[in-house]
């Protein structure tokens, strides 16, 4: 048994290795560097992300077709689908790191420790988006979760942060157990943990393990699907597995919330797609009902509960739940357009959601109760830039044209219609209308309410200003320039090519 790895094999894992290497460097920085630690650590982490982005872009250019360098036994793929999500993940990680330094300073965090955990989580997420094996999916979901548990509870002086970390930890590891039990049953039914082999077995090809053993068969596959759906739904905060989300989002340090609200979903959805639409694609009659019901409940519950929130972070948490529902609609369509919509959604979501959290952060760092929605009253008078940016994020989250949020939602619902599930699209549109209730409330407060007497001007730092402007510009550019959507189309081609 000799293992021959080619340059292409190493290339496929290079972006992930770069991020992991950067995280280790940061740990050493934290241990040895004593002066200007925050600046140095931020610099290292941003440079790492840039390097990983370059490696990922190179992979994209090289792997035009379906890329499974090691053949059917591959653990990890360097295909364009994975790279596309890498772009979204690296982007959200970079945006979160850009807004972090002021928070790190005021909360007296260990910059190296904090940022290296973010990079470890990013590496886990990238691994997850690239995984072709249930084992790798499990490992990567744990890598990102372990880092996020610690990050959520990072603020040791704030009981809320500790509580968030601990709650997230208990519930998430509970969900992990379901996920791997589901994986075990799928393994038992198909004889492999490799997604491509599972496709071959369930697709009914002759000469596979499935045809020679009889243990497998339907109950295992069905229970396995249900258990894995529970595990994934938990990580994606899909109703009814969403209970942890508002508490964790509210309690965790704000840069962490911004990061995890986008990146966790952008990492878990591609793996979810690979497992359900690809490996279990032949079994779609079994899982469609589950996802259909989850999508409807998620959209309704997320949007309705968001209406009554008074904390901005909790509002954004429920809005995130609702958005997971929209993406789930696209995913359950189980077609090419659906997968494209999922991919496109996350580029858009990264800009608008992290942007929205950046605003919470700017207001929080002023020592006010920045989390309370009431603080947004008359924000336009106090800081026109912040108010306009928030307005754009809210309109985009609500799905107004011409912001990118509109196009993302449009493609998601179009996929459902194309698959013949108009009811999903209709419920999606109705719940989007409900969502106007809370998004526009913030906008009205900012622009149409008088500012309270004695309120001072609000000014963000240069990094935050840059990040906000970039996000606002990104939302218009991604929506109006078709290049980004074409990128998603190409990404999905590599993914679906392989099922046929």
């Amino acid at each position, binding site marked *: 048994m000799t293992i021959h790895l080619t340059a292409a094999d190493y290339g496929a894992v290079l972006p992930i290795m770069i991020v992991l290497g950067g995280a280790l460097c940061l740990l050493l920085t934290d241990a040895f560097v004593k002066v200007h630690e925050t600046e140095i650590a931020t610099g290292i982490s941003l440079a790492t992300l840039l390097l990983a982005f370059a490696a990922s872009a190179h992979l994209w250019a090289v792997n035009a077709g379906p890329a499974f360098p090691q053949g059917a036994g591959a653990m990890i793929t360097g295909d364009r689908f994975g790279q596309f999500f890498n772009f979204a993940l690296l982007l959200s990680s970079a945006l979160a790191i850009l807004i972090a330094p002021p928070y790190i300073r005021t909360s007296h965090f260990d910059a190296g420790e904090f940022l290296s955990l973010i990079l470890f989580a990013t590496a886990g997420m990238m691994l997850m988006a690239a995984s072709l094996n249930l084992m790798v999916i499990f490992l990567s979901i744990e890598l990102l979760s*372990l880092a996020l*548990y610690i990050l959520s509870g990072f603020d040791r002086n704030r009981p809320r942060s500790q*509580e968030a970390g*601990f709650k997230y930890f208990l519930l998430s590891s509970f969900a992990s*157990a379901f996920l791997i039990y589901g*994986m075990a049953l799928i393994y038992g039914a198909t004889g492999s943990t490799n997604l491509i082999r599972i496709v071959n077995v369930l697709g009914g090809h002759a000469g596979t393990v499935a045809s020679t053993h009889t*243990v497998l068969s339907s109950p295992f596959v069905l229970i396995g699907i249900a258990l894995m759906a529970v595990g994934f739904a938990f990580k994606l905060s899909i109703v009814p597995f969403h209970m942890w989300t508002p508490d964790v989002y509210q309690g965790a340090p704000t840069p962490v919330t911004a990061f995890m609200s986008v990146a966790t979903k952008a990492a878990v959805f591609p793996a979810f797609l690979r497992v359900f639409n690809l490996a279990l694609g032949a079994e779609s009659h079994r899982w469609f009902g589950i996802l259909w019901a989850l999508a409807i409940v998620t959209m309704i519950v997320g949007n309705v509960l968001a209406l009554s929130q008074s904390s901005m972070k909790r509002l954004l948490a429920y809005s995130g739940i609702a958005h997971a529902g929209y993406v789930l609609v696209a995913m359950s369509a189980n077609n090419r357009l659906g997968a494209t919509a999922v991919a496109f959604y996350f580029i858009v979501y990264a800009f608008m959601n992290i942007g929205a959290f950046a605003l919470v952060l700017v207001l929080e760092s002023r020592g006010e109760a920045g989390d309370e929605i009431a603080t947004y009253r008359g924000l336009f008078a106090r800081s026109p830039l912040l108010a306009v940016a928030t307005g754009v994020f809210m309109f985009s989250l609500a799905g107004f044209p011409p912001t990118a949020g509109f196009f993302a939602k449009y493609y998601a619902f179009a996929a459902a219609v194309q698959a013949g599930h108009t009811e999903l699209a209709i419920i999606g549109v109705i719940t989007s209308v409900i969502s106007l209730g809370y998004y526009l409330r913030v906008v009205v407060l900012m622009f149409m309410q008088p500012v309270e007497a004695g309120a001072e001007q609000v000014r963000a730092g240069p990094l935050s200003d840059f990040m906000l402007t970039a996000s606002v510009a990104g939302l218009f550019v991604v929506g109006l320039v078709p290049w980004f959507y074409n990128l998603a189309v190409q990404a999905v081609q590599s993914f679906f090519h392989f099922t046929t």
Partner: protein
Amino acid sequence: MTPDASSYLIISAILFTLGTVGVLVRRDPLIIFMCIELMLNSVNLTFVAFSHYLSSADGLIFVFMIMTVAAAEVVVGLALIVSIFRTREDIDVDQLDEMHG
């Protein structure tokens, strides 16, 4: 009579259910924690049973991964518990109600 694969699967399903019920009814975080470990180990048993039955090594490697990850999870969990202990007298999951969730 030698036990066949289904006996192991039934045992592990029972263990998994016990763990699940334990997580849902117990209030002490350490006990909840142990119940989660029980669930993970029942999954390990399932993997080993399947692996033996299918004569494939994938399941065994998976067990190694689960064991390593479980250890890491224990460490992170204990660290979080200890850090909460520092600020509160004792912990009970019902008292973790700082936020109205």
